[in-house]
């Protein structure tokens, strides 16, 4: 007899198994194992060059895996918010038109979705005239327009100030509860991430450690990468990815046990 607690069924949306990605001779990711369940917020943290974006690209399908598999639930709908998006000034593009790329949606749905991210009366504006925060919200709105099961964000708060990014992450949490979608994001901002995520994956070419934010924060691997206490966030920016660990644990395949 199956015992499932109602309302908290853990259906796996996506699982990455033994993924290795080589980019032009350089191994960006080695033997990655991870999964995302329905309705979960999972954050990937790691220093520059640790393969965070590569992992998202592999999941989205923009980068081919050299080894291993990425299993997706049947008919999984993915919404994707890119790290940065440059719209050339030679291309006219209103917010309303951008929202309908590549699929047609009716005006009511478009405006309703823009409202969900806190944007009103903006659909007639050109994308190039938006502020950084507005632009990111439009990207987010476009990604949730087709009601995705999984929303993927690649450092979506780049270029926003602290207040702006804090507001953005709060918005993401609200969206998760409204839409019931799982969220996979990459972030630099540890202090925000640690409070908003269900699970954290600490990446440095391989999975250093993973688990709930408090567990990850207390592992020696995490501390070796980001330091301890509130200075952690700052340590991240100074971090050199050719690091040597104090505990030397990160360079092994210890994550298989976890």
């Amino acid at each position, binding site marked *: 007899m199956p015992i499932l607690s109602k309302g908290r069924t853990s259906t796996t949306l996506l699982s990455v198994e033994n993924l290795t990605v080589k980019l*032009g001779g350089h191994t960006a990711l080695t033997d990655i194992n991870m999964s995302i369940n329905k309705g979960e917020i999972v954050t990937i943290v790691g220093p520059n060059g640790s393969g965070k974006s590569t992992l998202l*690209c592999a999941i*989205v*399908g*923009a980068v081919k895996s050299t080894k291993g598999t990425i299993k997706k639930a049947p008919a999984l709908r*993915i*919404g*994707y918010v*890119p790290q940065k*998006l*440059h*719209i050339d000034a*030679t*291309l*006219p*593009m*209103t917010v309303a*038109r951008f929202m309908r*790329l*590549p*699929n047609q949606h009716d005006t009511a749905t478009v405006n309703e979705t823009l409202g969900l991210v806190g944007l009103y009366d903006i659909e*007639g504006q*050109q994308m190039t005239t938006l502020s950084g925060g507005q632009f990111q919200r439009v990207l987010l709105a476009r990604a949730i327009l087709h009601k995705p099961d999984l929303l*993927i964000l*690649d450092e979506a708060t780049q270029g926003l100030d602290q207040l702006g990014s804090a507001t953005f992450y709060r918005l993401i949490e609200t969206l998760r509860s409204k839409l019931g979608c799982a969220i996979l994001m990459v972030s630099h901002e540890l202090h925000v991430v640690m409070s908003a995520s269900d699970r954290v994956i600490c990446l440095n070419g391989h999975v250093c450690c993973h688990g709930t934010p408090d567990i990850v924060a207390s592992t020696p691997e995490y501390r070796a990468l980001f330091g301890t206490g509130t200075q952690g966030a700052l340590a991240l920016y100074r971090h050199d990815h050719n690091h040597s660990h104090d505990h030397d644990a990160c360079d092994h395949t210890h994550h298989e046990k976890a």
Partner: protein
Amino acid sequence: MYFGDATAHAAILGIAISLVLSTNIFIGVLAVTLIMAFIVSSLTGRGYAMDTLLGVMAHSALAVGLVAVSFIKGADIDLHDYLFGDISAVTTTDLTIIWLGALVVLALVKWRWSALLTATLNEDLAHASGINPKREQLILTLALAVVIAVAIKITGILLITAMLIIPAATARPFSRTPEAMALLATLIGAFSAFVGIEASHIWDTPTGPTIVCVTALLFVISNVVRLTRQTG
């Protein structure tokens, strides 16, 4: 749009081949431009920069084409006609081919429009929407190859890129969406061709360059209007 230039330059090789085989120049030019399109789209992203690749291919093809043409003995050809176009040389067969080419390109672009637009905007965004940006890029280059092959007799090799770029740039200040810009650019292009042909009859000027002059003039007017709107 540098691809337009490169393909047009390569077209001279197509003309040479057509003359050697004594076939219609559309066939030779189309063959060469399509081959260019395939080579460029399969080599990009493999450690070659698009600009380098196009530069090498375009000018090599142009040089080889010019050398090849010089070998053709007794061929009574005026290269000038192909470099600058000669609308008076256009036959009824040519017109049929031009219309067919236009319909093919129109159908291709209409069919792939949304995907093309998404892929042009951002490759990752395209991937996430289940669109393969490389395939869309290939479709776009193929469409351009067809346009160049059918238009070369009218506008000529050297000015063809002008007709690809200037009408679109003229339409830009008055367009709010990509669709509006495409439609307006088409109208501006057609209007320029009409006025250009009439003007070349009146003043006895070369037709291709006259058409381009009209578009250029429209571009200037469009941008003066844009600037006065901004400051006003």
